[in-house]
């Protein structure tokens, strides 16, 4: 978790190093994700042609982002025609201030919130609590994390790292309930608290999975029904959504809803899929009296301006790239110190929060490409990690490292010098002084936990030369006979 007391890269190093040796936690996360993988493989196979579905999804998102202005305005026009209100927030502060002002104006006391990573992104709960509003997270996982005072571990499965007994202990400590190992009982404990929160709340805050331009509606996908109650019961509803979540047509959801479910949790369809198009209309008996959609930019347009990486805005936040990432599985979600963890988070966080402070996340990858392979909307995730590395080196080269690569390139462009180095100082002994004592030192980094191969007698090129000489002499002898 980023405490802001130390630079993000230092926090990452210490947290990742600690978590990657926490064997029980790693095993629990791997077990949870292997269940996901089994479910996903089964569901993915029910698509007639996953590859084409993926290509279509990428095409639709590409179209949506290329005409973002048009589609967002189309949404606004349709949504406001039904009495909804749209606020365009350039950054976190604007979004927070708008929501705080709204709460103040309406004498709001209690707020219930359904899952919204945008809320995490702008630190909305902290801002609301600081102003004295009570806020209750209604998604079970988010509620557990809120009680624990921790940010989500995974942006789809917020408390996937916790065991049942840990949750039971937490409820016992915070709510005074009896300890239990039964998941149903644990759920019922949370439900009792949450049911009261829906009724008491005078403001409901949600995120949104899709912004549907042609009908002017937002689409919310969930498994617990909590978002329906969050939207439906309080008299004011606020949906805080990133501008990239737009799709042009309602018909597009025929693809995106099953795709999000499949990639996200391995379900055919998520439990509840709802469309919300505005506040209570004349003659309707329920629904919020006011419905506000807050469109959040918060540097998304900065990413949009980058032609190389703008496909990262295709992301539907399914979390599949986290679920297959060997780095995520070994270091866990909190090590990242970001709202969006895992490979996609490592790609977009430098755009949202600054490359210099967040470039280390792009470096902390073996570039295996499992993320790109699994991404349902075809984002070139692991290559963007390479692009971030290149951009970071160009923006502010690390002096020592740059010197190392210059020396490396000097050597590798000179085959005779390279051969000499290989012969007398195997494997870059020549370059070693440049990195000795730094994190780049291959010897220290390697031999702490792994053996180094024994140096063979003679390089390949020496053996190949000898092999050819022997062949020639054999041919010669053969010819003379």
């Amino acid at each position, binding site marked *: 978790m980023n405490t802001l007391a130390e630079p993000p890269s230092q926090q990452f190093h210490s947290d990742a190093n600690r978590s990657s040796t926490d064997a029980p936690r790693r095993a629990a996360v791997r077990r949870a994700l292997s269940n996901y993988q089994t479910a996903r493989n089964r569901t993915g196979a029910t698509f007639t042609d996953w590859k084409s579905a993926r290509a279509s999804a990428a095409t639709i998102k590409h179209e949506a982002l290329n005409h973002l202005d048009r589609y967002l305005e189309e949404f606004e026009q349709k949504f406001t025609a039904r009495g909804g209100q749209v606020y365009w927030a350039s950054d976190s502060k604007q979004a927070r201030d708008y929501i705080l002002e709204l709460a103040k104006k309406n004498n709001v006391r209690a707020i219930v919130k359904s899952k919204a990573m945008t809320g995490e992104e702008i630190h909305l709960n902290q801002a609301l609590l600081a102003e004295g509003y009570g806020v209750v997270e209604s998604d079970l996982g988010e509620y557990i994390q809120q009680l624990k005072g921790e940010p989500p571990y995974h942006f789809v499965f917020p408390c996937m790292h916790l065991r049942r007994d840990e949750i039971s202990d937490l409820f016992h400590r915070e709510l005074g309930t009896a300890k239990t190992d039964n998941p149903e009982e644990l759920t019922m404990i949370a439900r009792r608290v949450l049911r009261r929160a829906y009724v008491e709340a005078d403001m409901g805050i949600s995120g949104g999975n899709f912004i549907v331009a042609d009908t002017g509606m937002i689409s919310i996908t969930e498994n617990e029904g909590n978002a329906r109650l969050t939207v439906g019961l309080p008299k004011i509803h606020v949906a805080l959504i990133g501008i990239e979540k737009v799709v042009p047509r309602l018909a597009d959801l025929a693809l995106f809803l099953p795709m999000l479910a499949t990639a996200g949790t391995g379900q055919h369809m998520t439990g509840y899929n709802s469309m919300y198009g505005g506040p209570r209309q004349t003659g309707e008996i329920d629904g919020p009296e006011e419905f506000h959609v807050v469109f959040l930019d918060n540097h998304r347009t900065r990413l949009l301006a980058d032609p190389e990486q703008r496909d990262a805005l295709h992301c539907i936040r399914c979390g599949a790239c986290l679920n297959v990432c060997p780095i995520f599985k070994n270091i866990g979600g909190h090590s990242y110190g970001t709202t969006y963890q895992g490979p996609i988070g490592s790609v977009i966080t430098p755009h949202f929060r600054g490359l210099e402070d967040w470039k280390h996340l792009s470096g902390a990858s073996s570039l295996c490409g499992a993320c790109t392979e699994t991404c349902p909307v075809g984002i070139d995730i692991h290559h963007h990690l390479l692009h971030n590395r290149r951009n970071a080196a160009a923006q502010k080269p690390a002096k020592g490292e740059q010197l190392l690569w210059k020396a490396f390139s000097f050597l*590798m462009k000179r085959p005779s010098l390279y051969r000499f180095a290989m012969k007398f100082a195997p494997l870059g002994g020549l370059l070693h002084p440049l990195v000795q004592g730094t994190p780049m030192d291959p010897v*220290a980094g*390697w031999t702490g936990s792994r053996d180094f191969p024994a140096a063979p007698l003679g390089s390949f090129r020496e053996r190949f030369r000898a092999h050819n000489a022997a062949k020639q002499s054999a041919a010669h002898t053969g010819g003379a006979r």
Partner: protein
Amino acid sequence: MRVTLFIPCFIDSLYPNVGMSMVHVLERLGHTVEFPEEQTCCGQPPFNSGYWDEARSVASKQIDVFKDAEVVISGSGSCGAMFKVFYPELFHGHAREVDAKALSSKTWEFSEFLVTKLGVADLGARFEGRATFHDGCHGLRELGTKQAPRELLKHVKGLDLVEMTEAETCCGFGGTFAVKYPQISTAMAEVKCNSICETKADYVISNDSSCLMQIGGWLNRNVGSVKCLHLAEVLASR
């Protein structure tokens, strides 16, 4: 056919037997094998570190070295992917873009060359033992090589090939990543090696020596009994 070998720097210095095994396999098939001595490194270390100018100057040298080659065969999926996939990107919009693309199109990963280009699967190899195969990420996901090495190993007499659960999971090498983030890299190696050990295999085979350096490094330190072999070494044995 005249085939030109690209032997990455670490195979040259640490795993010469892998290179020689490739030579034996290709010569037995009747091909003329050449190895331009001017070759050094593909430039992947600076490329992956973000230092693309430095990578480009090394890469440019290799483009010269392999200019006259008919086909270039790489004994490492990773270095092969550097030629095949990343050179075109590295030189995109640069003077040598066409040359980079030319090298890319004639570069083959060793197993893919044998199976797809030459149409050979049975090399008459014999190797006794139980083995599991590790898919190097670059070979698997950048080059799309999955079946070719298995096809070749299926025809090796005496070899009992068993798949591990984590065959496609990264071993945690990742070049400079392995030394920049040794703890994470080692945790990944542990997951990989546990999966190898579960199969009760005596050997782990791969078409990438860099992964094998990582896997072997961890196994030697912690297990000791499982041996690492490059695909070419198995195919060359009789």
